[in-house]
């Protein structure tokens, strides 16, 4: 019985999700968000306290990668906690927040379980459990047809790729004749195994928003409430990347063909995301494209297929989530278009300067933590002999400065409108929700601090990840 203690963190979050669903009885949105934040924070801590067995449920869940597993589960819960703390302060873009809080927590449970999934069935279930609430969150403004349109596109694209993946998984099952993780047994020509593996990868590539499976991202981001984007574009990306790493390392065959496919997606994603981000005038769309390019960087590390590459890819997605979460929270409270954030530095200097830290971290400017993540994947890919892709990635990361500067410029340029003359901030999502700017500001500063501070301990963190992955 004692081995089930390892799931206590997930259980805590799950209970909090159920409580949030019945928040009407307790007092409303803020209570729901506070309960969720507290539960997620508790889960983040408890992860480290409970004993960890090798496997659970007949190896449907395994915890083989010790430190990595713990760090990621704790990290996901911790970021969710910060996010919900912000929700408690600011609400959810003018709509009832309590169901959204519950959905966020359900998705978090899915993500946390996905980290330890080591069976095709649990893999698929957890992936869907993590994603399905996200569809609803993206379409959460049910009165806003743009939000619904974005959500429908997200839904259709994501289900399509999930089914392609499921089709691939059915063949993996057929070849291995069981569903637990073990190297693929290909009876027949090698290309069969590779073709099946590509089908499986498609699902992950779509979830981590890599090109050419990215089409839904910009549309969904622009339409959705910014708070939803903050969660979906940041936190819910972490687990799929790690799950893909595990699948590649433990199940799918190592072959030139497969690494070439990953590399092609990387080399397409990076320039596509960065070029398209340059011409955006809406931060939410820009974040979508920068996420596409970031998926490319992660795949460089994945394609290297070394512990160092895997560790840096996982590290990069986690620290990217920190910075994007912060940036999107700033956007969620100030508005997404460049016109909305014009002159932000005068109105909300703390938010504006934090946004500068996030943006620098996203484009990988030292000493922000994003720099170390990118450095890690690039050096891993270089060591694996991918010279040209690394060169492209380095050149493109210079161009990436362009979109960051566009946003910074917008924030530091006084706007056309009157807000800074009257001195009254004009929150875009003005609702009757009782605002708590100090709490929201604290969350934003904490995230900025993480974007900077994690950079100082990036080196040991990556080595820890690398040690537990090899």
């Amino acid at each position, binding site marked *: 019985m004692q081995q089930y203690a390892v799931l206590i963190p997930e259980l805590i979050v799950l209970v909090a999700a159920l409580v949030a669903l019945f928040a009407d009885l307790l007092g409303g949105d803020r209570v729901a968000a506070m309960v969720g934040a507290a539960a997620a924070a508790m889960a983040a801590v408890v992860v480290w306290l409970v004993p960890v067995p090798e496997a659970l449920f007949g190896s449907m869940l395994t915890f083989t990668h010790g430190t990595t597993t713990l760090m990621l589960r704790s990290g996901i819960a911790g970021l969710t906690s910060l996010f919900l703390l912000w929700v408690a302060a600011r609400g959810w873009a003018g709509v009832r927040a309590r169901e959204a809080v519950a959905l966020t927590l359900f998705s978090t449970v899915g993500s946390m379980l996905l980290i330890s999934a080591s069976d095709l069935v649990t893999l698929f279930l957890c992936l869907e459990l993590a994603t399905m609430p996200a569809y609803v969150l993206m379409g959460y403004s049910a009165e806003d047809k743009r939000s619904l349109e974005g959500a429908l596109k997200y839904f259709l694209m994501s289900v*399509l790729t999930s089914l392609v993946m499921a089709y691939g998984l059915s063949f993996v099952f057929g070849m291995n004749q069981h569903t637990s993780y073990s190297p693929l047994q290909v009876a027949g020509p090698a290309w069969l195994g*590779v073709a099946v593996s590509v*089908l499986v990868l498609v699902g992950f590539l*779509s979830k981590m928003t890599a090109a050419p499976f990215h*089409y839904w991202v910009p549309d969904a981001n622009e339409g959705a409430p910014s708070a939803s984007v903050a969660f979906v574009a940041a936190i819910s990306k972490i687990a799929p990347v790690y799950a893909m790493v595990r699948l590649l390392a433990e199940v799918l065959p190592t072959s030139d063909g497969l690494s070439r496919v990953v590399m092609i997606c990387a080399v397409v994603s990076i320039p596509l995301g960065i070029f398209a981000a340059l011409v955006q005038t809406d931060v939410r769309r820009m974040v979508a494209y920068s996420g596409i390019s970031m998926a490319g960087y992660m795949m460089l590390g994945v394609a290297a297929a070394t512990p160092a590459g895997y560790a840096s890819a996982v590290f990069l997605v986690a620290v990217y989530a920190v910075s994007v979460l912060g940036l999107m929270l700033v956007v969620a409270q100030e508005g997404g278009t460049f016109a909305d954030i014009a002159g932000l530095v005068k109105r909300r200097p703390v938010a504006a300067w934090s946004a500068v830290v996030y943006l620098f971290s996203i484009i990988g400017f030292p000493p922000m933590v994003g720099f170390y993540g990118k450095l890690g994947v690039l050096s891993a890919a270089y060591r694996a002999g991918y010279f040209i892709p690394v060169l492209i990635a380095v050149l493109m990361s210079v161009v990436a400065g*362009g979109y960051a500067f566009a946003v910074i*410029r917008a924030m530091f340029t006084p706007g056309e409108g009157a807000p800074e003359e009257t001195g009254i901030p004009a929150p875009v999502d003005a609702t009757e929700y009782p605002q708590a700017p100090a709490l929201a500001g604290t969350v934003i500063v904490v995230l900025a601090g993480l974007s900077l501070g994690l950079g100082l301990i990036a080196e040991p963190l990556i080595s820890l990840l690398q040690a537990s992955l090899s």
Partner: protein
Amino acid sequence: MNILVAIPLIPALVFFLFFLLPRATRTKMLFLPIGAMAVSLVLSLMAFSTVFPGAEKLAEHGAQFTSYTIGVIGGVPLNISLRLDALAALMLLVVTIVGMAVQVYSLSYMKGEERIGWYYAVLSLFTAAMLTLVLAGDFLLFYMSWEVMGLCSYLLIGFWNTNDEARRASIKAFLTTRVGDVGFAIGLAYMWATVGSFDIPTVLGSAHTWGPGVATAIALLLFFGAMGKSAQFPLHIWLPDAMAGPTPASALIHAATMVAAGVFLVARSLPIFEASGVALQVVLIIGATTALLAASMGSVQHDIKKVLAYSTISQLGFMFMGLGTGNVSAGMFHLFTHAFFKSLLFLGAGSIIHSLHTQDMREMGGVGKSMKVTTVTFTVGTLALSGIMPFSGFFSKDLILDHLWREGHYVIYSVALASAFLTAFYMARLWFRVFSGTPRKAGHAHESDMKILSPMIVLALLSVLAGATTLVFGEFLGSETEWPSLVMGGASTIVALSGIGLGWALFGNGRDPEAVRARASKVYMIVTNRFFLDLVAEQYIAGGYNRLSEKVNWFDKKVINGIVNGVGVACRQAGTQLRRLQAGRVQVYQRLVVAAVLVLVLVAVLATGV
């Protein structure tokens, strides 16, 4: 604590302190950055005295360094270290002296600015970065401080951030120098791959074993970085625009120190360039091209700061020519003297702008009568830049010309001589337009206060005296320097004097070509103009020359600017095209996804082999 660490650390601490303080408090505490600067200056003098004057003392005390391990790459420790040698000691003096002068000057010049505290904070950060750069014992620390300087330059150019021109100029400067930095960064990566170390003595010591191909590649990549930072053709376009920043900041960053960092980089890594050979030729050619083009463009500017900006580009070209001969002193001595007289000229220009509230020379005139101290010091700077004996510029420029001649680069030599002629000409043009004649549109000038004048007086003294160190300088750096020979010195003096003469003929006594043309019909013209060949000069020489210069200018604006901007436009264009792919219809997306899946499966299968 080691004195070397303290030199850059003190200004850096001031920056962090100011960063945290509220604006009102900062404004009251301006003595802090100036005090920090003074401490750095004293410490730099102490450091300098430990290695001066010669080789023995250097061997004994020099190369003392402090090293820290900041990380491990593939099992090899990554160190950053500070190291003091002759080159570093020399640069320490330049940076702290000019930095001190500029900080005192700014007290008055920037008085009443709302964000003066921020200005001083960035100035301190810049000083810290530049001092770290000159002391860096490895290329990694060098590169890190190089980037921080770029950031400071961006912040200072865009200091008046409500001004759209300033904001655009700051972004342009940042992005253009970043283009160079890409080369630098790739060069460093290549270096790491070749040597497995960033430690400067280790790298330079092994340079001759790399083989010419690798050495050339690394040298050119490093030089590309230097071209961006030191505004060499065709990456020079950011510097004239950078004049939108405060004038004292331009004096420090865009005249004396940061733009010289590229020269310093090449001087530091000269053994790599020598191992390559080809790279030295490239440095020579780029330097010569830049010197001539920038000098000719400087001759048609009307904005006093832009003239000085082009002049800086041109003089940096001279320094690269000096290094291109393979002689460290030839380039570095000019860097040394230029730092003093060019920052003096910028500060002088600032004093005039401060008084007249215009930068347009066509609106100035007769300043000489009302601003005595400014006039005298500015004249010293002008003569030093023009290369007139006994001002320092004469000695340093002559050293370059002398080496070019002796190494047999006759074509480059004549280009350099032509540039020297143009230099004297545009400075004379500037001087006569501003100081002689009668006050024009901008009205009467009044002399600035002592906070502005005293740094200028100090720099003027240094501009005169620096030339006397010619022999000591060479000995200190360990490469021969000599007094100018009679023939070489005579040739360059004649060239400089004729440049000034042409300037006087065209612009002396408040004349300018337009006025000359207006008077052309009068009897006066028959006597005076014919006698002085004014008309001929104006109609044919100056006219043709002006047209040519304007052509060059046009080429610069449209083509070079166009190409560099074009890269940015192309990136945006690519983005716009990519947007079209995102047509909004979900089923189009789905078809694209299905097609992508099929293609990827096919690629994977073919790569595996059927």
